[in-house]
C-alpha cells in the first residue's frame, strides 16, 4: 500500500487560516476519489463506521447542514443533529455546557455553525472533541471556500494564476474571507468588488485588489463569485435601497453578454434572485452554482475522513 506518512497539519478545521497549501491539496486529492465514490451505484463506504458526529447549528442552514449530513452518512458515521431553536439553549444553557452534555454521550466530532466569530476556536480549547467550523459569524466558512476552490480547479484544471472577483457584501461574508485566504494560498489573484461601505477597510493588506465598478471587475476576472446581501447581519443601512444595489452591483444576462470573454459565475447560496444575480444568469451555462453544491459533499467527506485520522488511536 502507498503508506507515505501524510496527514493534515491540524486536528480541527477552524478556518482556512490554519491550513497549509499541502493540507488544501491533500483535501482536494482525497475529494477527487470521494467524488468517484459518489458516482457509484452504491455511494457508501465504511471508513467512519466507528465515529459519532454531532451537527450543532445555532444558525439557519440548508445546504451546509444537508451537505455535511450526507457526507457523514456516505462515510457510515453515526450522527446526531441539533438545532438551537428547538433546544435548551433557549432556556439559557451556555455553549460549553451544551456541547459538553452532547460530548458526554460519547461524540467524537462536532460540526458547528454559530452566529459569533471565533465560537469554533473557543470551543476547541474547552472540549475534548474535534471541531469542524461550518461558519462562525462573519469570520470563516472553511468548507465553503474549499469547495469553491475545488470547483474552480475542476473547471479550469488549476487555481494558480486564475483571476477571481468576489462581488457583493464582502464585509459581512464569512465565505468571502475564507475564499480570499484559500485562493491566495493556492496562488490565484483575488479582487473584491462592492459599494465602499461593504468592503472591509485595510483589505488591501491581504494582497487583495479592490474595485468599486462592477463592469471593470467582471472584465478583469475569469470567475465571478457573487455574494448575497446579508440583511440579517446589517444593523445599520449600508446602501440606500436594494433596488439601487441591484442596479449597480446585480449581475444580469445583458452585462454578462456585453463582456468580451466568457466568465464563470459562482454563488455560495442562498441566492436572492433579482438582487445580486438574475435568474437567467443563475440558470445559465456559465453558472456552476449546482456543481458547487455537488462538490460540497465530496469536499466535506474528504475533510471528515482526513480529520478522523487525526484522532488518537
Amino acid at each position, binding site marked *: *500500500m*502507498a*503508506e*507515505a*506518512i*501524510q*496527514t493534515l497539519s491540524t486536528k480541527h478545521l477552524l478556518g482556512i487560516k490554519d491550513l497549509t497549501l499541502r493540507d488544501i491539496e491533500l483535501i482536494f*486529492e*482525497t475529494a477527487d*476519489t470521494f467524488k*468517484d*465514490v459518489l458516482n*457509484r*451505484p*452504491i455511494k*457508501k*463506504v*465504511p*471508513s467512519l463506521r*466507528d465515529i459519532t458526529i454531532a451537527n450543532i447549528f445555532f444558525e439557519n442552514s440548508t445546504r451546509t447542514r444537508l451537505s455535511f449530513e450526507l457526507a457523514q452518512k456516505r*462515510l457510515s458515521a453515526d450522527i446526531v443533529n441539533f438545532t438551537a431553536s428547538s433546544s435548551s439553549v433557549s432556556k439559557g444553557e451556555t455553549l460549553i455546557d451544551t456541547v459538553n452534555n452532547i460530548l458526554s454521550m460519547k461524540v467524537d466530532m462536532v460540526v458547528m455553525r454559530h452566529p459569533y466569530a471565533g465560537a469554533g476556536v473557543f470551543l476547541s480549547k474547552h472540549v475534548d472533541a474535534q471541531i469542524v467550523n461550518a461558519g462562525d459569524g462573519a469570520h470563516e466558512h472553511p468548507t465553503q471556500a474549499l469547495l469553491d476552490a475545488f470547483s474552480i480547479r475542476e473547471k479550469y484544471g488549476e487555481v494558480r494564476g486564475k483571476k477571481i472577483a468576489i462581488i457583493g457584501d464582502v464585509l459581512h461574508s464569512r465565505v468571502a474571507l475564507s475564499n480570499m485566504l484559500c485562493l491566495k494560498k493556492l496562488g490565484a489573484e483575488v479582487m473584491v468588488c462592492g459599494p465602499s461601505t461593504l468592503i472591509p477597510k485595510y483589505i488591501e493588506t491581504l494582497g487583495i485588489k479592490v474595485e468599486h465598478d462592477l463592469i471593470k471587475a467582471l472584465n478583469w476576472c475569469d470567475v465571478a463569485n457573487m455574494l448575497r446581501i446579508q440583511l440579517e447581519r446589517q444593523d445599520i443601512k449600508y446602501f440606500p435601497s436594494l433596488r439601487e444595489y441591484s442596479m449597480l452591483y446585480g449581475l444580469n444576462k445583458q452585462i454578462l453578454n456585453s463582456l468580451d470573454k466568457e466568465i464563470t459565475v459562482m454563488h455560495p447560496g442562498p441566492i436572492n434572485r433579482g438582487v445580486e444575480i438574475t435568474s437567467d444568469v443563475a440558470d445559465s451555462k456559465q453558472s456552476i452554482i449546482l456543481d458547487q453544491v455537488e462538490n460540497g459533499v465530496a469536499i466535506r467527506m474528504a475533510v471528515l*475522513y*482526513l480529520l*478522523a*485520522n487525526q*484522532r488518537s*488511536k
Partner: protein
Amino acid sequence: MQRLTLLDGPKFQITIQRLCHQLIENHNLFENSVILGIQPRGIFLAKRIITELKISLPDVKIESGNLDITFFRDDFRRKEGLLLPSSTEIDFIIEGKKVILMDDVLWTGRTIRAAMDALQSFGRPAKVELLALVDRRYSRHLPIEADYIGIKVDTIASQKVIVSWKETDQEDKVILLSEK
C-alpha cells in the same frame, strides 16, 4: 537486512504463463469474466497477466479494471499515517460477471476481505476468484484462500515479500527481506 531472491528471470515468466493457462482453462474466452487488479500493487500483476493472455488469445477482448480498497480497510486510524486512496477504474457492469481479483502478495487476507466489500458497491458478481503471485502460507488472519497461486512461501511476520516489475522497477523479481 537479508535479501533472498524467491523468483526471477525465466522462472518468473514461466510462473506468469502458467497462471494464464490456468485462467484460460477455467474461463475459456473470458466471455463473462472480468479482471480486477487491486490498487496499488495488484494492478501491475493484472496488466502483465492481460498482456500475456492477449498473446495466447489475440482476438479476445478481456475486460479489466483497477479496484481501490482504501475506504474499506479495517485498519483506518489504527496505523501510523494516513491511508491515501488510489483511483478505482471499473468501466463495465460487474453484476452477474465472474470477477478475478489479482494482487501481488496474499498475506493476512485482510486486503482481500476489503476488496470483496468494495466490490459490493459495483453490483453482485456471479463468482469471485482470487489470483495471487505470492502466497505467504500459514499467516492468514481470515479464512481466505487464493484460486490461482504463483509461488507459495513460508515466512514469519517480521519478514517482507516484495514484488518488482520490469515496467516500473526495471526487473521482474520476488524477494524476501529478513531483518539481520
